[in-house]
């Protein structure tokens, strides 16, 4: 399996939000403004790649040799939570502007199921280290893409004056999300 096809498959064909339906909470929660969608997107790219790398090491260097594969869920969550804490501390010291820009989104990622989901998918597919990191990078770019598109659409929808009151806000966002998921189904044919 070459890395390029893993990358493109995880961005478009198996888009983490629109095909696998993981991480739907920030997809609806943080998509009302393009600025915050971008902040969340960058934070997810960063954390997901780091978390995939470290969970791969934890799984293959600790759990598999000792014969306790079934502990993966607990240990992955432990890794992700500790990692997010660490990243937050380091960012606060090293790059305060970025820390301010990411703001509340960084701690929110701790409970983002997409991050855990990608770690588990990597494990289930028996990916090597590079393949895992590539898959995570692609998936997080796919997350960024979906979130950014959604935020752009919602910012324009907010300007509508003819939309009936009962469709404003979340209802139209859900309809938009389902139409986007339908559109992304079109990518299934290219791989």
């Amino acid at each position, binding site marked *: 399996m070459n890395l390029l096809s893993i990358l493109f498959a995880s961005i478009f064909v198996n888009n983490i939000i629109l095909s696998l339906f993981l991480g739907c909470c920030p997809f609806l929660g943080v998509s009302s403004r393009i600025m915050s969608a971008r902040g969340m997107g960058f934070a997810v790219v960063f954390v997901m790649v780091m978390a995939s790398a470290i969970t791969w090491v*934890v799984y293959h260097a*600790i*759990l598999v040799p*000792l014969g*306790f594969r079934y*502990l993966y869920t*607990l*240990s992955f969550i*432990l*890794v992700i939570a*500790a990692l997010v*804490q*660490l990243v937050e*501390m*380091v960012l*606060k*010291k*090293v790059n305060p502007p970025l820390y301010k820009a990411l703001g509340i989104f960084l701690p929110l990622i701790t409970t983002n199921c997409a991050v855990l989901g990608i770690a588990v998918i990597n494990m289930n597919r028996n990916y090597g280290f590079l393949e895992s990191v590539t898959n995570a990078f692609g998936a997080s770019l796919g997350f960024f893409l979906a979130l950014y598109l959604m935020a752009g659409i919602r910012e324009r929808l907010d300007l509508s004056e003819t939309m*009936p*009151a*009962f469709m404003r806000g979340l209802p139209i966002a859900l309809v938009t999300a389902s139409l986007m998921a339908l559109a992304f189904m079109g990518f299934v044919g290219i791989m």
Partner: protein
Amino acid sequence: MSSLLSLEGVLLPSAILGGLGLGFGLVLALAASRFRVEVDPRVSRVREVLPGINCGACGYPGCDGYAEAVVSGQAKPNLCAPGGADVAAAVASIMGISAEAMVKKVAFVRCKGSPDVARVKYFYDGVLDCREAVVVPGSGPKACPFGCLGFGTCAAVCPFGAIRIENGLARVESLLCTGCGICVSSCPKRVIELVPQDKAVRVACSSRHKGQDVKRVCQLGCIGCGLCARVCPEGAISIADNLPVVDFDKCTSCGACAQRCPTRSILMAF
């Protein structure tokens, strides 16, 4: 018991997870001391004098956010509405600057259209919450599109219990009100506004419609006749969108406007 506490079943997994947790904990502890960011000690002192109810009236996310903003010089020390003048003075003394005089504001419901004087378009049988009722076509049962719906969303969100529903209208108990403004932003009709507590004049109608349209739906609505603007000796009242706008810097609370108002839409609070 022995099988429960076996090496394979319980102890080893616990040891592995405990070890992982301990390892991560140590790394985090090291990082915490290695990457410690010096926090201005004034932040925690400002935070201590703030009320700590995290109402957000200052415009910052909670009291912590406001304390940081004050110390970094982005915010003025007098923005804490629930804390009032005392907190403003305390914060200012920590920051070493003088507090600007802070006018206490209270919430006021700009509507007198109780069910006996205001017409109702239809019978609403849904969730008793204004935010739900406005979603219904026609945005609520009241014929006047600007009036208080009286389902008590403001009363439910008020952290100080200062709002009650009386005779189908929200009423603010100004002694309990701290002017935090949570009700103002929760009201889907935007019928609540913050007014200076030391001024008595209150405009008790929000209808921007013309006089005849107001008369059709409410007996006590402001018809925008402009008498108040003409009788005000200080020239503090102007008419905009068929409603009087009071310039509280000029208002002396003389009460001339309230006396002349033909629909009793201007009230005196005291």
